[in-house]
């Protein structure tokens, strides 16, 4: 037994304290839940309605991956591939890897990034200054990404989803989780649950393969790292232990390379433009080095030409980072009380596991080659979709997911020492009680400071909430007894109840970390976003025109690159005409908000008309190549059908392959 610390002042309270909400009786419609993998680099949405096999939903161009990049260069945000086009022209208005900023204050951000963080209004949250006197919180940026995925789901389901499961790194703390939940709410989604990414991967993998036994999930994404050990048995997915680092990922590999390139270019204080270009080139180089032994990097803005980087050079840069993840692997095996050889398999998740050095070291640590039969990009979204289907009320017989709390929860006691009430890796739901006593007769109140983390001192842990307990009867030391109960539900939502045993006086708080963005502000943002949807129609129209123009520009450019040099497909004169239109279109694009919607439409139409013949020739060629041996009539039939499609697709420069 120990004495809780007494604190009179309640400054720096991170919490909103209120009566715990009653459990609502939700209306859920089986089959209308969606699973979202909100990744650092890419995001995906998947469904698995009524027990069906999960599938990822594609965008209009057949692509499952939505780059997690949002451009605020124009008045209305542009998300995904097109946002990436703005990165160099508007380096501080295009936000990539926002996940690393979720639930963090400006002070928490210890790495180099091209953004301007404004911290005038409060200190607890990072805000991106995106120009034109506008700022965006990480929650708003994430909500913009989620909206695109939501509309993808609406198109597929034919109605609004009843709810979503959004995946988060297992090692996210409560502030990061709450920020993610708020982003979902802001995007108009009802968040059924936040599911740990490695757990989602195990769910998808286990149900797909029918595997049994102990499995390790090594999940290295763009910005976060998780490792989990699960036991799969008869449809029950039991997480035994989880660990990781919510600030370690492929972005750190890129940054290591960026630092080296800055050294080579002898630049000490790079501009945002330089940083954006460096990040893009470094990532491309890292990806190329998965297959190639060496690559040449050119970074125009830094005056770097054909700088050669070898795979072993990259390995040297990132070895300390990858080793860090291996230390977490050994710790998690120890927590699960298992030896590496007892595992049936190790599953790799996340794009960064494509890096050869990562595979090598995983193999060394777990003493087996990782399983290679899954798509590391999709498996998390698949698992989220299965979970969403379950939580929408579908019958999936016998499947149960027993997840754990990743970080210990405790109370600050005398001397700032943490008394752990619920240790990490406890299966949820769980409740735990502890009795505390008074230290003096004069003590009539107690402040319970609820903290999260593994460190011994409360200052080194993350403070979640303060609960004031008053009216303790005046009794000799150690005679007044307060029983504190921590209840974690299946959503890992914590409710803390304190009860004075002599008088039965009880106080309760639902612990909701606010990480600086209060409930009021969330509500305001939601109503604002609804108002904007009405008022800002013109701006939206402009943005959409810009998106459409961007799509055509991208398609024409790709087509010229792919087949422009083939005989008879594109004459020099035609290439010149298309080039002129492309250029003026790109000038309009770079004006961002300043270009009128009609100008953008005109530019698109001109580009389409000047490249229409080229598109037609290209299509014919593709069809001829694909249908050798067919009669002319058959080909014409297909062509006619395709032309309908072509009209719908506007421009028709889809990337057919010519083999």
């Amino acid at each position: 037994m120990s004495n809780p610390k007494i604190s009179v002042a309640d400054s720096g309270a991170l919490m909103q304290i209120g009566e715990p909400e009653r459990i609502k009786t939700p209306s859920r419609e089986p089959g209308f839940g969606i699973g979202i993998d909100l990744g650092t680099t890419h995001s995906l949405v998947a469904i698995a309605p009524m027990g069906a096999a999960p599938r990822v939903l594609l965008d209009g161009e057949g692509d499952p991956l939505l780059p997690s990049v949002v451009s605020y260069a124009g008045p209305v945000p542009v998300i995904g591939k097109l946002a990436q086009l703005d990165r160099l022209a508007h380096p501080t208005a295009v936000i990539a890897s926002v996940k690393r900023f979720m639930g963090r204050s400006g002070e928490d951000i210890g790495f180099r990034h091209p953004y301007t963080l404004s911290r005038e209004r409060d200190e607890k949250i990072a805000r991106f200054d995106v120009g034109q006197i506008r700022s965006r919180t990480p929650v708003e940026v994430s909500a913009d990404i989620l909206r695109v995925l939501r509309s993808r789901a609406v198109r597929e389901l034919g109605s609004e989803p009843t709810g979503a499961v959004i995946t988060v790194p297992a090692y996210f703390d409560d502030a990061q989780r709450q920020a993610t939940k708020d982003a979902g709410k802001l995007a108009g989604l009802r968040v059924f649950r936040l599911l740990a990414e490695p757990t989602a991967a195990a769910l998808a993998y286990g149900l797909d393969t029918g595997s049994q036994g102990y499995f390790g999930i090594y999940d290295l994404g763009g910005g976060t790292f998780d490792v989990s050990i699960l036991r799969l048995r008869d449809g029950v997915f039991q997480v035994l232990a989880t660990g990781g680092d919510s600030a370690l990922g492929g972005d750190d590999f890129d940054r290591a390379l960026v630092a080296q390139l800055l050294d080579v270019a002898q630049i000490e204080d790079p501009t945002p433009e330089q940083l954006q270009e460096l990040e893009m080139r470094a990532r491309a180089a890292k990806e190329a080095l998965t297959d190639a032994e060496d690559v040449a990097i050119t970074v125009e803005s830094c005056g770097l030409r054909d700088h050669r980087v070898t795979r072993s050079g990259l390995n040297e840069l990132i070895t300390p980072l990858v080793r860090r993840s291996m230390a977490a692997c050994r710790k998690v095996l120890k927590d699960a009380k298992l030896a590496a050889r007892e595992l049936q398999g190790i599953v790799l998740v996340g794009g960064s596991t494509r890096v050869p050095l990562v595979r090598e070291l995983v193999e060394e640590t777990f003493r087996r080659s990782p399983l290679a039969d899954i798509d590391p990009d999709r498996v998390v979204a698949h698992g989220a979709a299965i979970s969403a289907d379950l939580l929408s009320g579908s019958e999936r017989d016998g499947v149960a997911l027993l997840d754990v709390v990743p970080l210990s929860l405790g109370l600050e006691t005398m001397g700032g020492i943490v008394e752990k009430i619920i240790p990490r890796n406890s299966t949820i739901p769980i409740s735990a009680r502890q009795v505390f006593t008074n230290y003096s007769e004069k003590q009539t109140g107690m402040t319970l400071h609820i903290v999260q983390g593994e460190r011994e001192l409360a200052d080194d842990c993350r403070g979640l909430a303060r609960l004031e307990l008053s009216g303790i009867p005046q009794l000799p030391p150690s005679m007044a007894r307060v029983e504190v109960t921590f209840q974690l539900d299946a959503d890992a939502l914590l409710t803390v109840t304190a009860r004075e045993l002599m008088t039965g006086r009880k106080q309760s708080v639902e612990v909701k970390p606010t990480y600086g963005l209060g409930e009021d502000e969330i509500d305001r943002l939601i109503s604002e976003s609804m108002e904007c949807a009405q008022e800002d129609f013109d701006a939206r129209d402009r943005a959409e025109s810009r998106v459409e123009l961007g799509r055509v520009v991208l398609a024409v450019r790709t087509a010229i690159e792919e087949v422009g040099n083939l005989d008879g497909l594109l004459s020099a004169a035609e290439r010149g005409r298309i080039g002129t239109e492309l250029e003026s279109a790109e000038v309009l694009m770079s004006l961002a908000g300043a270009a009128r919607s009609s100008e953008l439409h005109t530019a698109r139409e001109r580009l389409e008309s000047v490249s229409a013949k080229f598109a037609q020739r290209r299509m014919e060629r593709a069809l001829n190549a694909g249908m050798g041996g067919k009669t002319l009539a058959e080909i014409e039939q297909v062509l006619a059908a395709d032309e309908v499609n072509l009209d719908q697709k506007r421009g028709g420069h889809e990337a057919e392959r010519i083999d």
Partner: protein
Amino acid sequence: MVVATPSVFDADLSSFDAGLSHFARFGLPPTCDLSHDLVDDAYLELSRRFHPDRFVGRDARSQRLALQHSSAINEGYNVLRDRVRRAEYLVKLAGIDLDSNDRSRGAPVPDQRLLVEMIGRREELEECASRGMKALAEMQRTVEARADALLDEACAEFERDEVKNAARALVEHRYLRRLLDEIEAACT
């Protein structure tokens, strides 16, 4: 000692009995020597049945009951799967709470012999630490073996209905566990 306990496997969500012992909740006999498999099988079956995810669309009362059941099941699993916690829990059910200082119902006060032995072991630890890792590892092995023997002894005493003796052995086991933590800390 095998005592038949009422099985809850056919119980539904209609009520929650907070006073049920972990053994009764799991439908297992209250004994020291339970195989891992038995505990695991019961745990998986109960989890599948009571996990709150199965009741998401149901009324508030069902959800609250599912939460209570699941929390108790997970708590019970933590105790039953761990041989030491299981033994301490059995002794608690039999009337001696090792977490309490109460004279009649609390942990037995350690006798002079144990305290003298512990002082000796602490001195040994200091000496081993100065001699290096090899000496520490050796001491760790010796203390672990002694702790295992004590746990066996506690279980044997409990099965003979000598609850006080079992409690005494478990108190000594706690001392050794703390010592093992210190050895571990000295190793790093």
